[in-house]
């Protein structure tokens, strides 16, 4: 069964959670049967480049919304499954997301994406906007 390196993943997660940090995204990848932090960065476009057709990964991303007077951070949990990912690996992502969620507990909306177009920043932003307060309050525990 898959394991997760909780400590390392939590450190990466907290980096994105921290409004003061320049890191706005981090990926969680498979190292054999263990989920570990992958790349991280300050530019969303660089994150998109990680999402290739043969790759599956989880990502935690911070988006800043609102105007200069009242900035608000919103977080997205993204599961990327490339088109060429095998059935076995594809199936695993569905199960292993529960492990990632043990670390990533605060997000406005989660996405399962296998189409590059849906990774576009505008799309994610508009979906996050819609999500508003209608999501489960996962933060409350």
């Amino acid at each position, binding site marked *: 069964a898959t394991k997760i390196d909780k400590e390392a993943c939590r450190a990466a997660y907290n980096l994105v959670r921290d409004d003061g940090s320049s890191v706005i995204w981090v990926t969680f990848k498979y190292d054999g049967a263990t989920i570990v932090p992958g790349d991280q960065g300050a530019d969303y476009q660089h994150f998109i480049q990680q999402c290739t057709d043969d790759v599956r990964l989880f990502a935690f991303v911070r988006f800043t919304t609102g105007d200069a007077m009242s900035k608000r951070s919103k977080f997205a949990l993204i599961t990327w499954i490339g088109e060429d990912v095998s059935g076995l690996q594809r*199936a695993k992502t*569905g199960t292993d997301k529960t492990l990632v969620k043990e670390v990533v507990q605060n997000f406005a909306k989660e996405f399962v994406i296998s189409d590059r177009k849906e990774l576009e920043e505008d799309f994610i932003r508009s979906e996050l906007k819609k999500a508003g307060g209608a999501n489960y309050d996962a933060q409350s525990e």
Partner: protein
Amino acid sequence: MPSYTVTVATGSQWFAGTDDYIYLSLIGSAGCSEKHLLDKAFYNDFERGGRDSYDVTVDEELGEIYLVKIEKRKYRLHDDWYLKYITLKTPHDYIEFPCYRWITGEGEIVLRDGCAKLARDDQIHILKQHRRKELETRQKQYRWMEWNPGFPLSIDAKCHKDLPRDIQFDSEKGVDFVLNYSKAMENLFINRFMHMFQSSWHDFADFEKIFVKISNTISERVKNHWQEDLMFGYQFLNGCNPVLIKRCTELPKKLPVTTEMVECSLERQLSLEQEVQEGNIFIVDYELLDGIDANKTDPCTHQFLAAPICLLYKNLANKIVPIAIQLNQTPGEKNPIFLPTDSKYDWLLAKIWVRSSDFHIHQTITHLLRTHLVSEVFGIAMYRQLPAVHPLFKLLVAHVRFTIAINTKAREQLNCEYGLFDKANATGGGGHVQMVQRAVQDLTYSSLCFPEAIKARGMDNTEDIPYYFYRDDGLLVWEAIQSFTTEVVSIYYEDDQVVEEDQELQDFVKDVYVYGMRGRKASGFPKSIKSREKLSEYLTVVIFTASAQHAAVNFGQYDWCSWIPNAPPTMRAPPPTAKGVVTIEQIVDTLPDRGRSCWHLGAVWALSQFQENELFLGMYPEEHFIEKPVKEAMIRFRKNLEAIVSVIAERNKNKKLPYYYLSPDRIPNSVAI
């Protein structure tokens, strides 16, 4: 001190009752109650089929009751309990809490009242939390797995007993394929032939030795008329695989048939090309079988496959008859085009090859892939993404009942290495896996939308193509289901925006697409649903596939496949490469031997049986819904279905070959066999 009357209903299936201790607590807006042991002195509580009431008095005012928590604690042995529902009479209210689930071991279950709610309807924190927790638990229990490369994903469970208790069969024995086949063969008095592998029958009449025992009208008629072209043609419309025939709009290059060759069959004084233009030519192409490996699991018996193309003609009496058959895909000298004017046995053997090919496509594609595996996908996604309080969970749960269980059982015993499937089928030993892998490319959403699928094959004109009862009855049932789902959708979704914003629904649809259909764009499965209309169409696909489509292709198997020469599950000699050499002895030596015939017969008999206590379309004895508008919609649904039953019965009157597979009183709610 407020006092409540709690009524507890235990299931009536085997082993549903329990002797364990059952505790109840109530969770309300103003607080939680203490744990109460539900127990009456000198009385055996929670017996199978029982309905017991208890008075529960609590110390403090609880306010509005949101949840009921049930805990089961061991008495002596672990003793599973099937709880149907709980009702609660409060000082000013009466609340129903549907459950319909097993509580196993030292288990507990927290129930919400029966009013269906979308996520947006839940504002109270503990209710939101309950919703989320349930899905978290389910997603751990219901996991996707890849059975074979390229297949739609299925449940992650090695065997039936590894499945969550709620989706297991009540008794595993009832669905043991090995046991059922053996029982069938015993009942059929055919076990004396069972071990006679490699031993051919003497002639066609010899097949009657295993046939006579359970004859009914259709199979008997098949036996008496199977060699006739009319009977051969009829099966493409109303047999158990009525989904392949297409109108031919252009003669394929790979079938170089000329007017001269088929002149004798054409009745309108037109050339073949003109007949094509007039829409009188139909085609069935078994291209998918080209290059599939034949079964090599028995070194003593060579088995063979072909990939025929069959051209059919609608004659002046509007009947469909075969006019040309080529047994493989590439034309050539060694791949002659067989014609009705050829010698009797040449033509007969060519037709037998088509029937055998049809059997393979039927069993593996039409039946296994396009009903069983597709229904399982919907079932897994439903359990993973829709909480029990969601109206669409309440709607769909009856239509995925036992489906994951039967498929798990099939993977365990039927379609596995050295499984039953390998014994008598020419596509056993891996061929059927290759077939599914190819057929997945054509597994599109629109091909599951019944009216569209019929249209895509050019078979929709009822005046032009009469006697297509599968189409006529299927459309009636499709419309009845669609008007039912439309009603249910309109009760819970006041407009399209509510549909679009129902995240749980969107996650369900996404799970089907990304996992079930492996994110294959060409599948045309929606990734999201944006309107009420699209939602009811989607739900209609789920329900129709599980009920009507499966019934149409499953329950006719004994009728059409029990006469072995009409549906040979294997062929023991390669397709003929020349005309004028075939003899009756060769045909009999090509057909399945005695042992394989018996296994086949056992299989089609077992598969064609309804379950004990079968639930037919529209029967919802589990009352997940408690609201009146839905219950009324169900009543209207059943009324519509009853009307269809009468229409079909009237149409079938005095017919020698009645078509009843899509009569709603014979359509089970879900794929369970």
